[in-house]
């Protein structure tokens, strides 16, 4: 790909990434948000993170079928406990990587 191919692709990706980040902020920062919306939005982050994670832990990415007992899931349990205990993002990432690496050598 040429410089212009890359520029066009990334500019397009950048635009569709930036607008969903910017427009709601610009809109809702000028208006009062109703109580129910604030309540609903407070549940969004936990829901998004869980929705991102669950298919990684419980499904096979190639066949898109349920797959239990994956190494990703087995490593997730101690990693989650470590995260709950320490609340440290950096340390949790390193512990998760280390466990996954060690687990991969055992399997």
């Amino acid at each position, binding site marked *: 790909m040429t410089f212009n191919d890359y520029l066009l692709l990334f500019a397009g990706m950048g635009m569709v990434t930036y607008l*969903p980040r910017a427009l709601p902020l610009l809109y809702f*920062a000028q208006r009062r948000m109703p109580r129910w919306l604030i309540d*609903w939005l407070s549940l969004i982050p936990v829901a998004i993170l869980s929705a991102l994670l669950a*298919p990684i832990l419980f*499904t096979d990415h190639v066949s*898109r079928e349920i797959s239990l007992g994956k190494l990703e899931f087995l490593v997730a349990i101690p990693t989650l406990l470590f995260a709950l205990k320490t609340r440290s*993002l950096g340390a949790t990432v390193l512990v998760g990587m280390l466990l996954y690496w060690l687990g991969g050598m055992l399997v």
Partner: protein
Amino acid sequence: MTAPTSHEKNRPHLQQGAVAGWPICLGYFPIGLALGVLAQQAGIPWWAMAMMSILVFAGSAQFICVAMLTAGASAPAIILTTFVINLRHVLMSSALAVYLRGVARGFLALFAYGITDESFAVNHTRFRDGAWDRWKALIVNQLANTVWIFATVCGVLVGQFVPPGALGIDYALTAMFICLLAMQLQGGIYLLTALIAGALAVAWYILLPGDTYIVGASVSAATIGFFLKRSLRRGA
């Protein structure tokens, strides 16, 4: 005349922002490195990686972009996928707006650029607990952004020396999501919403192609959680 006070004010902002932001940077570094390594293996040059990280700044979409380029996908297909993947930021941006009411548009436009899953989770937690302001939040965003660009470019440059799967690099993104989830579990209704979202996401992922499961499952689960919370409150 105002210079000394603003200087004294700014210093703790920078420090506190950096203290809150460093775990994201530490988390971004191996992930960015991993992305760069994959990009190098896909034949993407370092300058293109730098351009992508600056213009897009969205980790998961960039991973998917590299995978799609490897598979020979067209630019419109990649852009459309990016849009769907990043629609979730509508929700995060709306949630942050609660704490940025009445702030100047210029600041918001700049701030919006740095909203990611990670910076959102850190900033939202801090805003909710109080003792946080938009300047510290902006520093978290921009610090993470800088480290991300640096790490992805480094990854391309060192990619040829890294064997695939080394040092658990594939698990960096997953471990980061796990910790961010743990930080969000602030009570029963959050745990319940997480369980519903996870179950819905798995079912949605299996039944429907594409990546609509992220937005679909999270919006559904938050809505169910919202009504459960409301009915529990009414019952009590």
